């Protein structure tokens, strides 16, 4: 922990201590219905619905500023994200068990809740909340996509909904937007207005592609819940039991991977996946063009200029490579000739008729075209 300052260490220890104390208090109380109180603002004491996900989130907020950015913290953040999914599962299981329901009711209630969540996503009613239950892998899946956006200089899109624009997604809204974008441009700024309209259209297309992608996943989520019901029924008929949350989680992952593996090989997935990437690229291309026109007007180098320079540089590299090889070959021949001369006997007064020089070898692969 050499990188940590003393103050960071203290803050870190305090945050850790508060977290430990909260759980220790709970343990001492022996109150199964209690939840830990992690401090003001979250956790609500005895008898209330558990707030474990929130507790974990608050703890991470408290300790993460004291960590050193890097691979370890990235990995831990992923663990916390998955921890939240797991806590959410625990909360649901706990709440249902608290009501005194039998195992069947509890399981069905949990699966019903998941199915409802996915159906809401399908209906585009809560697309903004998709990340909450999304792929069953929490925020991680969309984080991954947001990193893709970040790597292309499209950070502005990272915080907008699920990787796209944070816009209403009703059919009516899209229709209205398309009408506005279709309005003919007039006046002095006509050209610029047309370009911006075209760019906005590309943005709307990307949003639509992202919505379709998420909806497809939501549909797969519904299928996964249905597959889980079947798996649970099979377990029941076989007299097998799920004895821990972890077993339940692993079962959920197993079922999801199976359903996903089939889904990912469908034509539907091929289309939504391709459309998402293509729509993003079309938008990015539009943004690049706009930026280039701004740079050009300021007499600054554009992407096109840089690409031309890079292409020329690569041509020169190739030329260099060819020349180096030729030089090596010549050098080798000169060395060979010198070696022959050094070992040859003294020349006779009258030289015989000279032999024809050997032809230089060409690459021997039969498929070489030139």
């Amino acid at each position, binding site marked *: 922990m050499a990188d940590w300052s003393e103050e960071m260490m203290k803050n870190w220890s305090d945050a850790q201590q508060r*977290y*430990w104390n909260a759980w220790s208090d709970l343990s001492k109380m022996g109150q199964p219905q209690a939840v830990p109180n992690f401090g003001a603002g979250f956790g609500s004491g005895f008898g209330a619905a558990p707030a474990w996900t929130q507790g974990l989130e608050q703890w991470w907020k408290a300790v993460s500023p004291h960590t050193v950015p890097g691979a370890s913290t990235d990995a831990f953040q992923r663990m*916390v994200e998955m921890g939240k999914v797991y806590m959410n599962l625990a909360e649901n299981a706990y709440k249902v068990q608290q009501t005194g329901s039998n195992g069947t009711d509890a399981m069905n209630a949990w699966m019903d809740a998941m199915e409802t969540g996915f159906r809401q996503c399908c209906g585009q009613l809560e697309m903004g909340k998709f990340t909450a239950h999304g792929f069953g892998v929490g925020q991680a899946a969309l984080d991954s996509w947001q990193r893709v956006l970040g790597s292309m200089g499209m950070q502005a899109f990272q915080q907008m909904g699920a990787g796209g624009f944070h816009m209403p997604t009703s059919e009516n809204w899209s229709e209205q937007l398309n009408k506005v974008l279709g309005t003919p441009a007039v006046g002095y700024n006509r050209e610029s207005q047309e370009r911006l309209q075209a760019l906005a259209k590309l943005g709307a297309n990307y949003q639509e592609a992202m919505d379709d992608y998420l909806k497809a996943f939501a549909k797969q989520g519904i299928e996964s819940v249905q597959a889980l019901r079947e798996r649970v029924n099979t377990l029941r008929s076989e007299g097998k039991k799920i004895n821990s949350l972890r077993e339940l989680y692993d079962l959920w992952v197993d079922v999801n991977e199976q359903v996903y593996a089939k889904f990912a090989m469908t034509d539907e997935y091929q289309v939504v996946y391709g459309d998402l990437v293509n729509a993003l690229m079309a938008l990015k291309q539009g943004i690049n063009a706009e930026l280039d026109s701004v740079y050009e007007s300021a007499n600054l180098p554009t992407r096109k200029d840089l690409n031309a320079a890079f292409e020329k540089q*690569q041509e020169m590299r190739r030329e260099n490579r060819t020349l180096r090889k030729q030089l090596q070959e010549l050098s080798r021949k000169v060395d060979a000739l010198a070696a022959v001369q050094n070992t040859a006997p003294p020349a006779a007064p009258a030289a015989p008729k000279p032999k024809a020089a050997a032809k230089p070898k060409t690459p021997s692969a039969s498929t070489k075209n030139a």
Partner: protein
Amino acid sequence: MPFQMRPDEILNEVKTFNEKLAQGMTNLMEVGEISSGVTPFEVVYTEDKLKLLHYTGTTEPTNKVPMLIVYALVNRPYMTDIQENRSTIKGLLDAGQDVYLIDWGYPDASDRYLTIDDYLNGYLDNCVDEIRARHNVDAVNLLGICQGGAFSLCYSAMHPEKVKNLVTMVTPVDYQTPDNMLSHWVQNIDIDQLVDTIGNIPGEMLNWTFLNLKPYQLMGQKYLGMVDVMGDSQTLKNFMRMEKWIFDSPDQAGETFRQFIKDFFQQNKLLKGEVQIGNYTIDLKNVTAPVLNIFAEQDHLVPPDASRALKGATGSSDYTELSFKGGHIGIYVSGKAQKTIPPAIGEWLTARS
């Protein structure tokens, strides 16, 4: 009913999880720098961003024909030498091989126009020539891994006189087997638009694609499982090494990516004998060296059938297959792989060198 947990049991499980997580955080912060690559080496040749590494074993190589490992461009090659007791490189050295490896480096914007021709008839060919000169041999043993295997096949078809023996590991040959998820996904992508728009392909984009092959396991279950073992510093360190490797994805030179995805994945030209690299048309029948084709039975990236397609496709009269019960990564890092794969490669090569 299968689900039989009392509220206090649920509470207890949650408490245990949180305790492990909090304790694990402390351990994780103490992990420090994660080293990658454990076997000593010297850099014997450099060109642009490329480095040719020559590994030093504890004993003299018994096989006088040197071996060159050609890794994929999409990940870093230290997977083959990830830790002391999980190192394919070390296993090959122990098996008497004289091991070289190409580190392709991290392409930047200035490498956008690097083509497969530049990689194979430029960089790779120069490395082979360097090794031939150093050892005064006509041909070397090539070991190609994943995409590096496909490149090695192409190279062997173009320069058969420089390849003594060819080993391909988890190498796709038929890119359109029914179970090839990656291939299925890219069929609807406009690759020209992709490369024309962003030039080099960001490593993050590849990560996103690879993680989506098994999202629930790779983005979820894996991390939850890690919480259970975070108390053990060594296991934690090993986990972090793998994490580092997984997310250490170099960007891809745009023009190379364009040709690789279009010709190999979208049009399956390698198997059809239609790939054009520089002045060469790649005909696998030109591969005349003995071939050892190693694949993993549970490979989710390169399905076994994609590799098996090599059988009968080359012009070699000496073809051997080796099947490994494991996955795409396990074939380098699993304990079982350490005991079986490098010794088998060593034995096969020594018998033919």
